[in-house]
């Protein structure tokens, strides 16, 4: 069993839809939670970063962490074709700088 599980998709939705992406994890030591976005043939770039349980909002993006359920989510509101990319959740255990990634979900927003 992988430490971080993420549905690889692919996920295809119409423009304007609300998108929900999710990851579950098994390691209780994870303390920092991130979402990276990766466009085709590019390196991942940090989209959202959270430390504790709860919600964090940045524009159309909301990251949610539930440590008790070991579950994190990323919501995209009013999705745009430019949001089409692979979204990777990533986590870091406390005291370490080792990023552990989920498999990534390939998302397509159709105009």
């Amino acid at each position: 069993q992988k430490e971080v599980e993420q549905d690889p998709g692919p996920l295809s939705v119409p423009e304007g839809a609300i998108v929900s992406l999710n990851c579950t994890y098994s390691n209780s030591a994870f303390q920092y939670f991130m979402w990276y976005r990766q466009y085709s043939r590019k390196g991942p770039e940090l989209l959202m970063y959270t430390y504790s349980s709860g919600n964090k909002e940045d524009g159309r993006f909301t990251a949610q962490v539930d440590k008790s359920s070991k579950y994190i989510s990323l919501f995209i509101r009013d999705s745009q074709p430019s949001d089409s990319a692979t979204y990777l959740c990533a986590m870091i255990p406390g005291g370490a700088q080792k990023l552990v990634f989920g498999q990534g979900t390939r998302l397509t927003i159709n105009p």
Partner: protein
Amino acid sequence: DTAVSQTPKYLVTQMGNDKSIKCEQNLGHDTMYWYKQDSKKFLKIMFSYNNKELIINETVPNRFSPKSPDKAHLNLHINSLELGDSAVYFCASHGRGGHNEQFFGPGTRLTVL
């Protein structure tokens, strides 16, 4: 004005050859990483260096040897290339403090024939 750069971008080579990938960051970061992304997009850490010192080695075959001549550079040398080494290799860097953000390079797509 690229923050993390890698060369080459593409590398096609025969099984058994030795090849190197170079990485440079101009962010003044102390820590650099190599990641491997397989055909299913799964991204896995291979090595981490902090101030030229190896701090993470994720049970990577010893055919892979990272070298950090200074803290702005981290190169990856691969001996006796195998078909299974075909992947995209990403370099990343991270500075002290902040939000644990790692900045990734554009990747090197390695194809072993």
